[in-house]
């Protein structure tokens, strides 16, 4: 039965409610066994959402992208990569427990054809048990397919969405306006997951407020450390400003000129300056362009380093019709 479409359950303008009845089962033609399904292997991660006033308890399930060979289902496309099960009456706790069990055992990974040859386990994650070669091969193949599927454009879209979300969250933190909604949080975590962060923080695990936001920013930092050059510093600047109070190996650096860069903390100021001084001393003098070529950096970044070294008194400038050139600061070092 492929005619069904998703509906938000609300009435359209031209519709009126005629009758509602619980306990009705759906048959696909003569087929009584009609239900929608999703394999457990598609689950990256899931979490509880506690019940609240007027809100039932939920389990939120985050998923991998659909495999290419997926059977047709009720909906061909979705903008979300997670779904929620809302437990209107009860049963959430038990369901959650069983799901946890199944996802840790991963029974689907062992097949009847498995060889009894012991293989290396990844003891850190505790994920892989001793499965047969076939199981391993299948897993590798799956992973490869997943990786291929995440095309450039998909990443771009995700990145843009994530950035907007980060900005919205960052603004809320900045303006201290109300709480970040659960929905936003879940969306955010969904992005983190799809970027490879397996266990995003939740309000439940880290409480609410500043600490929670800090942890979110921390994970943002983790993302940026991955080779994701699609995000320009300007786009992320609001989210990046959350780095400030963290002991993350990332810093948002704002130069006097207003230029902003996200850089590894290992690029400590002293190192940069002393290396700039060494380069300049070695060559006698350098322009920003020459320095850029030497280091393989952009001219903009090279200039900022030279300016910084000048600010710290290690370099001085020669500004003429020939251009702007930096020298070691002999005014300081020489009598």
């Amino acid at each position, binding site marked *: 039965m492929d005619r069904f479409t998703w509906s938000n359950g609300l009435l359209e303008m031209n519709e009126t409610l005629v009758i509602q009845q619980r306990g009705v089962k759906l048959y696909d033609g003569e087929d009584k066994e009609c239900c929608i399904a999703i394999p457990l292997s598609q689950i990256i991660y899931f979490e509880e959402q506690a019940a609240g006033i007027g809100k039932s308890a939920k389990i939120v399930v985050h998923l991998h992208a659909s495999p290419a060979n997926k059977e047709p289902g009720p909906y061909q496309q979705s903008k979300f990569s997670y779904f929620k099960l809302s437990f209107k009456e009860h049963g959430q706790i038990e369901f959650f427990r069983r799901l946890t069990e199944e996802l840790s055992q991963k029974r689907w990974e062992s097949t009847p054809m498995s060889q009894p040859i012991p293989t290396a386990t990844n003891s850190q994650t505790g994920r892989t048990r001793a499965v047969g070669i076939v199981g391993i091969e299948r897993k590798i193949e799956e992973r490869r397919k997943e990786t291929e599927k995440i095309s450039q454009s998909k990443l771009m879209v995700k990145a843009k969405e994530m950035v907007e979300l980060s900005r919205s969250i960052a603004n809320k933190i900045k303006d201290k306006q109300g709480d970040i909604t659960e929905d936003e949080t879940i969306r955010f975590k969904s992005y983190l997951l799809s970027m490879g962060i397996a266990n995003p923080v939740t309000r439940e695990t880290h409480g609410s407020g500043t600490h929670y936001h800090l942890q979110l920013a921390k994970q943002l930092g983790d993302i940026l450390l991955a080779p994701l050059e699609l995000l320009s510093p300007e786009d992320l600047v609001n989210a990046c400003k959350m780095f400030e109070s963290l002991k993350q190996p990332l810093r948002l650096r704002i130069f006097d000129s207003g230029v902003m860069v996200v850089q590894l903390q290992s690029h400590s100021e002293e190192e940069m300056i002393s290396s700039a001084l060494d380069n300049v001393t070695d060559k006698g003098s350098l322009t920003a362009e020459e320095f850029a070529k030497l280091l393989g950096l952009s001219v903009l970044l090279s200039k900022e380093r030279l300016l910084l070294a000048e600010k710290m*008194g290690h370099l001085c400038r020669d500004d003429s019709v020939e251009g702007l050139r930096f020298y070691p600061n002999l005014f300081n070092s020489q009598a």
Partner: protein
Amino acid sequence: MSFEWPWQYNFPPFFTLQPNVDTRQKQLAAWCSLALSYCRHHKLYTLDIMEVQECPVFNHKNIDRKLSTEAILIVFEELRKKGNLEWLDKNKTQCLVMWRRPEEWGKLIYQWVSRSAVVNSCNTFPPEFHGLEEWMLIRSLQALQTDGKAEVITMDDGKGVKFF
């Protein structure tokens, strides 16, 4: 004896006004010192801003660098603050350069006077006073007067000085 240029004179950044405050202080100090020693060497007492820009001190043709007018004025302002320069006009086109300040001249004069033990008599000045222009001399004597070491007296045929 030919004039000896300081190492800064051959350092291109010397001719660019440095944005770093500490560096600039050192740079200006060096400029003041150079300007004064150059004037002393060539016995220059008055400078014209327009002419001075083409003077070798501020225009180093060998390295193709010259100090901008703006920077020259800043150097001169430093000299003025230290008591080594005085503007002759409001528009700052001409100035007096006192590579030896009146007080310093006064001291020299007093020392010479004391050594010679001469009061109110005519004497030839030793070489160091050669070229000392009258306006400078007068200021020096005034400085001594302020210090209580001399007194400028007006006499029938001019001025005289009494040393104490």
